[in-house]
């Protein structure tokens, strides 16, 4: 029963859920991107926090918009049918309402998760930044080893006259949006702590 309700609501809400998920994922990333300075000079931590905070108002706006649209979409099939078929289904009305509510809540899980992932990305960004800036020998060694390994492969392929721009491709793939490390292209890597 829940499965078919969920499916019918998915058909009405899928665009909202998908756009909401994208927005939910993008918002934390954009808020970090927005902290970058035009002159590429190093950012101070308070500046970064202020920049991220200034985007904070969009989270409740996004939540309210998503909640509103998904709630509307939950009842749209019934409103379209003037509730006739909904009310002649052989289930108590309170149960039917719970089924619709549950399906809507489950559909919202996607954008909620996206926001969490986005928020997590912010946290990861912060964590990586702090790790690199803290500059422990071990961290620096791992990072350098990884970079060195890639460079070594690149050099070897160049010597072997293999047409492979490994560094360039990796850079494009990883650092450009929507690459998983695109968040690191912000200037916040240069924050002084």
């Amino acid at each position, binding site marked *: *029963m829940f499965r*078919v309700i969920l499916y019918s609501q998915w058909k009405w809400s899928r665009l909202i859920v998908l756009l909401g998920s994208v927005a939910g994922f993008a918002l934390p990333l954009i808020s970090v991107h927005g902290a970058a300075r035009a002159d590429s000079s190093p950012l101070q931590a308070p500046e970064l926090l202020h920049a991220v905070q200034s985007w904070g108002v969009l989270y409740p706006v996004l939540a309210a918009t998503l909640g509103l649209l998904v709630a509307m979409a939950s009842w749209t099939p019934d409103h379209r049918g003037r509730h006739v*078929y909904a009310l002649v289904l*052989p289930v108590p009305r309170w149960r039917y309402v719970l089924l619709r509510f549950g399906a809507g809540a489950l559909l919202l899980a996607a954008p909620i998760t996206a926001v969490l992932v986005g928020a997590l990305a912010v946290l990861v960004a912060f964590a990586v930044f702090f790790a690199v800036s803290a500059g422990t020998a071990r961290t620096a060694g791992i990072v350098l080893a990884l970079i060195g390994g890639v460079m070594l492969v690149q050099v070897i392929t160049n010597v072997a006259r293999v047409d492979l721009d490994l560094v360039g491709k990796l850079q494009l793939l990883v650092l450009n949006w929507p690459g998983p490390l695109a968040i690191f292209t912000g200037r916040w890597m240069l924050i002084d702590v």
Partner: protein
Amino acid sequence: MTNAIEIQRLCYRAGRTFEIKDLDLHVPQGAIYGFLGPNGCGKTTTIRLMLGLLRPLAGRIELLGSAVPRDVASILARVGFVPEQPHLDPMLTVRETLAFHAAFYPTWDRPWAERLRAQFELPDDQLFGRLSKGQKGKLMMLVALAQRPELLVLDEPTDGLDPVVRRDVLSALLEYVSQRQATVFISSHLVHELERFCDWIGVMDDGRLIIEVPMERLKNGIKRLRIGGTPATADNAPFVLLAREPANGSGETWLVREWEPHMATYFDGPGVSLHEVIDLDLEEGFVELLRTFRGPRA
């Protein structure tokens, strides 16, 4: 005989002008009950009250022995309903619509639903919103029948459908009824359609039930009588006098119901004679009934 639908002294009001007042209605188990009435007379409202979609102000409604609205959820599991308008989800395909309803009805008959879908030539992957009016009508009937209900409540199920689709829909309905001995309550203003297969008839006008009789009695009992002379009263008549009008010349024309041939002796008195008994078909009878009902109130 027990009644599949039993309504007693039902009252409902919508706005200032529309009212259902003291409605009594009895649909015997296994009957095909035609619920006739002009547009706006309260047929759909009565059906909505029966199915618990509206709350009555007063009165008692029982479907299949259980009270509405108290036991409405369990009752609805045994009732197939075809509403007046195509109210199914327009975003679901035919297949998805069937799957949706199958999940709610424990008695849903999947093989039969599939057979009906093929018989009705309904495209599996077509959205309900993109089906033609005839296809929508067929799908709604399919949804109602595949539940294998004990009672079918049909609110003008063939209204606006072309004759071919109407025949398909009604054939499927009659096939089911003959197999299952289900009760059918079918509302319509298409008198000829009901005349073909209903065995009971109820006529409603202006929120009131004018008459509720077996179809044969209504069909055979409504007559127009040409009478010579002018009887003073019809107080002791063995039939029900619905209307009397002066005819050309000295006589009168009477419209009566519950007429039987032996009643012609009623006119054997001095100065009065029965000249002719004219049969009325159901539609004429229906129109005359409405005219009579409205006449004294106008």
